[in-house]
C-alpha cells in the first residue's frame, strides 16, 4: 500500500511539474486549446479560476412515441468549480447529477444554456483533453488486457511510445495490478476492474477529474484508497468534481459542495458554512433538510 502510494506521488510529482508532452496534431490542438483559453480569459478575467462552468444550463428529454411531453432534467443550472478544489456534487436519485455530468462529458447536448471546461464549450472534443473520467461502473473492452487498454487510451491522448510505457508501468503499479496486467479484463474481479478504471482516468495526467460515485460498490478498503487518492490529487493542485451519496466521505474530502434537487441547484458552499447556516450537526442533515425529508414515526 505504502509502495503504491509513493509510486502515485512520484507520478503526480512528475506530472505536476510539466504538461503532458504530446506529438503531432494533438500538440497543435493543445496549443490551440491553451491559446483559446488565454483569449477567453483576457475577455473574462474571472474565467481563469473557473475550470468548470455551467450557465443557465437546461436539459430536456423528449418522451417516447407514446408520451411526447418533454421531461426537464435540469432547470437553468449555474455552477462554477475553481481550479484546485474538490467539489462534491450531491442530490437524491433523479436530481440531475448524472445529466449534468453527461452534458459536461459531451454525451448529451444542452437544450439551452452553456457548459464549459477550461473555458471551452463541452461540445468541442478538445475540451476533454485535460480531464479524467471515472464512471460509476466499469465499462471497458473486456477482450483487452489492462496494459492494452491503457496503451489504447494513451494513444488517444497522443502520448509518445516511451511516455506511455513509463506512464502505464507506474499506473499499473499504483493500482496494484502488476500481476494481472497481461490478463484479459474479462477475467478480473469487480474491484480489479474498478482499479483499471482509475488507472485509465489518470493516463493523461488530468488537471480535472470527474468521478461519478467513485466509491460505489467498493469495500471499505477500496473506499479508503479512493479517498486517499482524491486527497493526494487535491494536494497536487488537481481539481476534482465528484458525485456521491456518501455524505461522510463528501464532508471529509470536499472543499465545497452543491446540492441539486429536481433539476435545480438548491445550495452551494463550504460544508462548514452550510452546517452553520442550517444549525445542524452534519452535512447529511443539511441534505435531508434541503430535499424536504420528514422523518415518520415508527409504529
Amino acid at each position, binding site marked *: 500500500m505504502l509502495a503504491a502510494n509513493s509510486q502515485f506521488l512520484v507520478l503526480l510529482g512528475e506530472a505536476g511539474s510539466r504538461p503532458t508532452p504530446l506529438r*503531432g*496534431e*494533438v500538440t497543435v*490542438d493543445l496549443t490551440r486549446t491553451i491559446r483559446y483559453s488565454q483569449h477567453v480569459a483576457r475577455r473574462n478575467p474571472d474565467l481563469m479560476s473557473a475550470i468548470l462552468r455551467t450557465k443557465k444550463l437546461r436539459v430536456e*428529454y423528449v418522451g417516447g412515441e407514446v408520451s411526447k411531453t418533454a421531461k426537464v432534467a435540469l432547470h437553468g443550472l449555474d455552477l462554477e468549480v475553481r481550479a484546485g478544489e474538490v467539489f462534491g456534487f450531491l442530490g437524491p436519485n433523479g436530481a440531475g447529477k*448524472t*445529466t449534468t*455530468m*453527461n452534458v459536461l*462529458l*459531451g*454525451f*448529451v*447536448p444542452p437544450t439551452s444554456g452553456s457548459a464549459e471546461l477550461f473555458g471551452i464549450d463541452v461540445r468541442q*472534443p*478538445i*475540451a*476533454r*483533453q485535460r*480531464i479524467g*473520467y471515472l*464512471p*460509476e*461502473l466499469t*465499462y*471497458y*473492452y*473486456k*477482450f*483487452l488486457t489492462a496494459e*492494452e487498454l491503457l496503451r*489504447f*487510451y494513451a*494513444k*488517444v*491522448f*497522443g502520448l509518445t511510445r516511451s511516455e506511455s510505457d513509463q506512464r502505464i508501468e507506474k499506473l499499473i503499479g499504483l493500482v496494484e495490478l502488476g500481476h494481472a496486467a497481461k490478463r484479459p479484463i474479462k477475467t478480473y474481479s469487480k474491484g480489479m476492474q474498478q482499479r483499471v*478504471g482509475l488507472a*485509465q482516468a489518470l493516463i*493523461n495526467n488530468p488537471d480535472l477529474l*470527474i468521478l*461519478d460515485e467513485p466509491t460505489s460498490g467498493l469495500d471499505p478498503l477500496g473506499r479508503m484508497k479512493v479517498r486517499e487518492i482524491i486527497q493526494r490529487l487535491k494536494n497536487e493542485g488537481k481539481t476534482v468534481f465528484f458525485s456521491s451519496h456518501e455524505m461522510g466521505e463528501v464532508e471529509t474530502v470536499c472543499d465545497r459542495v452543491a446540492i441539486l434537487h429536481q433539476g435545480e441547484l438548491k445550495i452551494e458552499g463550504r460544508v462548514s458554512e452550510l452546517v452553520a447556516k442550517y444549525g445542524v450537526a452534519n452535512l447529511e442533515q443539511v441534505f435531508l433538510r434541503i430535499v424536504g425529508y420528514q422523518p415518520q414515526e415508527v409504529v
Partner: protein
Amino acid sequence: MNTIWALAGVVIKELYRRKDFYVLFFLTALVTLAALSVNFFNDTKIIRYVKDVCLLLIWFSTLIIAIVTAARQIPSEKENRTIFPLLAKPVSRGQVIIGKFLGCWLACGLALVIFYLFFVVVTGIREPQWHLVAYLKSMGLQWMMLAIVIALTLLGSIVFSAVSANATICLIAVIGILFLGEHLNKIALKQGEPVQSITYAIYFCIPHIELFDVRNQIVNNQPLPGLVDCGLASVYAAAYTAALLYGTWLLFRRKSLST
C-alpha cells in the same frame, strides 16, 4: 489520426480474439479440400469446380465477417457502455465512425489475405500456372467492395437498434444487389408506372457491388479488367463508402447518449 488508428487497432484485436473468423476459415478449408480430393469422371478440368467452390466460400465468408463485425461495433459500444469512457476523452463521434470503419476494413483485408493464400496454395497443387496477378486483382476488388458493405452496415447499426436485425437486413440487401443489381434496369423496362420509375431510381442509387465480382473470369482463366478499370472501380467504391460514412456520422452525431 492517432485516435483513428487506436480505434482501428481495437477492432482488429477484437476480430482475432473472437472465434468467428477461425470457424469460417476452417469450414472453407474443409469444403475446398473435400472438393479437391474428389475426382468426378476423371475430369481433368476438375480444378475449375474447386476454384468456383472455394471462391464462393471466400466471398460468403468475408461478407459474413464484414457484416457481423461492422454490425456489432456501435451497438456493442453502447450496450457494454464502453462508448462513455471513450467519448469522455478528446474523441469526436466522427473519429469513432472512421476508426470503426478502418478497423473493420483492415480486419477484413487481413482475413482476405489469409483466405486467398489458402486459395493460391490449393489451386497451385492442381494447376501448372500460378495466376498471381489475377488473384491479386480479384482480392483488391473484393476488398474495395467490402468497404462499401462495411460502411453500409455501420449506417444500419445507427438506424436499427438490434445487431441481428441490422446484420440480417444488410446481408439480404448485399446478396440482393449481387444477384439482381445488374438486372434491375431490364426489370424496370417491363414494368408500368410508377413501379418503373421506382425500379430505375433503385438501380441508379444502389452501389453496384456485383461489378467487383470477377469470380467467373478467375474460374475460366479469362482476362481480368485492366489496372485502369480496377482503379476506376476503386474510386467508385471509395465514393460510395464516403457517402455512406458521411450519412452515418450525420445520424450518430445527433444521438443523445445517457449513462
